């Protein structure tokens, strides 16, 4: 079983696909910590649809789809930040409205796209085997910036994740951290769109963080476990996809779900919380 995998790995397109998939796992998994702890799962769908709509518009206007996807993602982040700070609109409603609006734009673009729709559909499922070195370099750069952001601003990130208002009152530049996070989400999603596809990104923006939430009370370990779960799900998913000859995106998503299910079943936190409830009941 190992030999054919080793042989496959000697081909540069497969090497690039594996590397891209692992980078996608790491970058989306780091973001999933924020998505899960700030309870904003819809941000993943909104951003993937922004990148998708941008890429379709790029195809229509004959611009590089990555660039137009990135621009629309960053615009979405720029709108989302100030609007979600308004007290008269609940952020989850706002994300719902943005998500459906962007989906509408994407389908409108698909409708009037005269060329073949295959290019646009590739954005949903990705096209790992046709990656260029430039695609890979963009993905690596975005992942590195995100990792540096987490390491350099860990103290501020913890304060903001805990409570944005308290972070602001303690003199933490919470708005800068929050907006930076939205922009980074946009950049990560648009960089990953053409490679692994919008559907996989959405899954990876929630599952690794949700897996880590079952396992630790320490935010540092939370980031590590989430990143490891993302990378592991992507790597193992690709191997499963090769061995069983199944679509890679589906294999990665199912592996990530399996990891979550295992973490949920064996969660020490759940047992501890149950124990606490029982103890309190007895009192």
């Amino acid at each position, binding site marked *: 079983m190992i030999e054919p995998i080793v042989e496959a790995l000697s081909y540069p397109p497969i090497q690039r696909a594996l590397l891209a998939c692992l980078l996608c796992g790491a970058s989306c998994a780091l973001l999933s910590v924020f998505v899960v702890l700030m309870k904003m799962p819809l941000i993943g769908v909104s951003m993937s649809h922004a990148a998708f709509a941008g890429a379709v518009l790029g195809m229509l206007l004959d611009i590089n789809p990555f660039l137009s996807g990135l621009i629309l993602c960053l615009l979405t982040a720029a709108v989302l930040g100030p609007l979600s700070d308004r007290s008269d609109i609940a952020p989850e409603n706002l994300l719902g409205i943005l998500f459906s609006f962007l989906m509408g734009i994407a389908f409108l673009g698909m409708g009037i796209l005269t060329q073949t729709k295959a290019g646009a559909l590739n954005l949903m499922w990705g096209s790992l085997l046709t990656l260029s070195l430039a695609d890979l370099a963009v993905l690596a750069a975005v992942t590195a910036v995100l990792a540096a952001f987490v390491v350099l601003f860990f*103290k501020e990130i*913890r304060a903001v994740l*805990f409570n944005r208002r*308290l972070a602001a*009152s*303690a*003199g933490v530049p919470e708005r800068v951290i929050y907006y930076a996070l939205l922009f980074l989400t946009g950049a990560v999603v648009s960089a990953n769109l053409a490679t692994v596809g919008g559907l996989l990104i959405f899954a990876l923006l929630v599952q690794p963080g949700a897996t880590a*939430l079952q396992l630790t009370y320490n935010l540092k370990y939370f980031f590590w476990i989430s990143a490891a779960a993302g990378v592991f799900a992507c790597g193992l998913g690709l191997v499963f996809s090769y061995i069983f000859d199944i679509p890679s995106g589906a294999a990665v998503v199912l592996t990530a779900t399996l990891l979550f299910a295992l973490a949920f079943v064996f969660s020490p936190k759940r047992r501890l919380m149950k124990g606490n409830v029982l103890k309190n009941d007895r009192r």
Partner: protein
Amino acid sequence: MKREILTLNNVAVRKQKALLLSGIDLAVSENEFVGVIGPNGAGKTTLLNVVAGFEKFSGELHLFGKAETWRRSRRARLCVGYVPQMLHIDPAFPISAFEAVLTGAAGRAGLFRPPAADERREALRLLDMMRVAHLAHRPLGHLSGGERQKVSLARAILQKPDLLLLDEPTANLDIAVQKEVLNLIDEIAGREALAILFVTHDFNLLPARLRRVVMLKNGAKVFDGGIDAALAGETLTRLFDYPLETFERNGKRFVSYD
């Protein structure tokens, strides 16, 4: 003469045509302990949000003699500590009581600096002062409401503010814990050099060191004076539109009603 920490001149807050606060004048000096009392919807929390820089307002607000809007510099924010009503936190959230206290120093330390050893020591000292040092490494979401409020007080004091804002810190706690938290607030007022604005709607649960009371009703200031005059039956009756009487026991004034 005591230095003035906070002054408000003709401050008003309007939201979607509703006037939440109007014509508020207020001056608070250093080390002064001021209670803000009023019925529900009087504008107490709105006033605290204006002072904390969470709410847009019209009129003038000066902190340490410097005019401020709702957008504050880091330096201005560091001077004002804030303790909200009991925080709801997911029991699975990855933060310990000690780490939650340390977030109070995150702004003061500045960017690119992990918490220093003396900040960590001070955080532990404050947890000890709040009688929750034994819970330092427990997940914050596993603590009871009262324990979380004590952690919240320690977090706000670690920030080393000159003005501490307490927004109904004893709300939703049972009576014994309310009393314990009030005693801790008294201890803070006695030991730390800071002014305190304490918002409550419960006039029977006031810290002993609180000597001055500001009363709000329908967004306007209706009383500003000493605690004895504030707790006179007729003043409270006018404030709450309900017949209230006061009586004294063990040198403390209590309020009763039918």
